[in-house]
């Protein structure tokens, strides 16, 4: 059984007053340290809604897919550990001109669905590292709370999402 009070620490008359002295002395020392914070310390709190922190370059916030550059290779969906990326595509009809991405790879498939469930996403960044055309990136946008869970599903072919592009894509 674990003991709580050791027998050797019997309280003596001088010990009683020494304890009181030590308590006052050590507490005073601590109070002096905290008192120094009154003037000799810069405030570190960021007052969030008014002041926003500048995020580091590599910050991994909400995912963004630049659907024009997507070649529907499904690498991202395969590497995702929580399976939160839903991709569908159909083959391009024969004879039609094959468009190219900005880095020159041909887009052979037509992307019909690209949805990410941001509520399920664990922001690990594995999908962005496998993307061959680098169209899937982590943006710096972190203010996207929703009223319902279904609102967290983002369809990147939607025009509304295209409209945010200006705001959330990293330069």
């Amino acid at each position, binding site marked *: 059984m674990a003991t*709580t009070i*050791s027998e050797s620490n019997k309280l003596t008359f001088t010990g009683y007053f020494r304890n009181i002295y030590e*308590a006052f002395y050590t507490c005073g020392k601590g109070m002096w340290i905290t008192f120094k914070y009154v003037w000799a310390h810069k405030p570190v709190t960021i007052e969030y809604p008014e002041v926003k922190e500048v995020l580091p370059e590599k910050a991994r916030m909400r995912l963004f897919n630049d659907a024009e550059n997507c070649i529907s290779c499904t690498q991202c969906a395969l590497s995702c550990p929580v399976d939160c990326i839903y991709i569908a595509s159909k083959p391009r009809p024969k004879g039609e001109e094959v468009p190219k991405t900005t880095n020159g790879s041909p887009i052979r498939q037509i992307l019909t669905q690209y949805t990410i469930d941001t509520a399920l996403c664990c922001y690990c960044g594995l999908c962005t590292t496998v993307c061959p055309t680098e169209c899937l990136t982590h943006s710096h946008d972190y203010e996207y709370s929703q009223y319902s869970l279904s609102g967290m599903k983002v369809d990147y072919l939607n025009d509304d999402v295209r409209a945010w592009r200006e705001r959330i894509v990293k330069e």
Partner: protein
Amino acid sequence: MSNTKTIEIGGTPSEKLKTDLLTINMGPQHPATHGVLRIEIKTDSEIVSEAIPHLGYLHRCMEKHCEKVDYRGVIPFTDRLDYLASMSMEWGYSMAVEKMLNIEVPKRAEYIRCIIAELQRIASHLIAFGTYAIDLGAFSPFLYAFEMREKVLRFFEELSGARLLYNYIWIGGVWNDIDDKQLKRIGKFCDEMEEEVKKYNELVSFNKIFVERTANVGVLSIEDAYQYGASGPVLRGSGVKWDLRANRPYSLYSELDFDVHVGEGERGVVGDCWNRYFVRMKEVVESVKIIRQLLDGIEDGPVMGKVPKVIKPPKGEIYIRTECPRGELGYHLISDGKKTPYRLKVKSPCFTHTSMLPLLGEGQLIADFVATIGSIDIVLGEVDR
């Protein structure tokens, strides 16, 4: 076991006074249980006569999930084990897969990993220090600790992109390279941290009230520590000089010069809460020493070794253990030659420490029991997995 305790007053059986043990629940939403741990306490007035920890409130089927995803995809799950020391968790798993695949990690990546792991140890011990002070009724040390921890987190955020769940240490190396500016900042942080620890010691460690609350409380003897399989600061607090970094060196630790601190019983007896707590403060200083050596020795080069595109370790199994901030973390990985692990078993230090609560709690005051839980510093993400 009966809940009823009979105290005999007077002579005849009819005059016997019956008293019941009162069962109360501490947790799962109790701030002193450091997460979602429920402890069923049977109290005799204010004395804990029995404490039974109930686990499973944070169980996320991590081990089973890992059997479904590929070897790279396991790393985000290992992050979520001990969410206060994610880098150390990733490191152990990466080492296990690298050993299976015989991948050689570049020297620079090893240096970065060591620096990161020691910074993580500092950040984790700062939380332990801060929350322990809160448990015992001191609020401001918590804010001081978080201010310093924030610097580490900011650094990790710049390096990996996330503040808590990094996915930074990969199989074969690390994700991004560190630049010289960041290394300089770590050096500066080390200087600051040394000063801060002195401040914390004056503020909390040697404060008479704090010492009275923690010294001679929750004493764990060496025999019990061995019997229960304690590790990390809890084992060292009981006076056992055992640290995997020194005794079974992995990575670069064999080249580094550092001490293993044990509880010496400066206040109270060896193995009490104060000693367990103070071992952590000494370890912070030791980590600073290790980081300084690593900063001096860091070499240029690649940060990622040669890793096959699809990771398929050969058939077999491996057990790797590393020294995490909370103790000895083990990964038992079994591969059947496929893309996904056959089995991944995690040996968590916090789980073994939680199992010591009935032993430590018996006969304590409830307030002392809170001090005991705080001193073993458990993270429930790791206990339940």
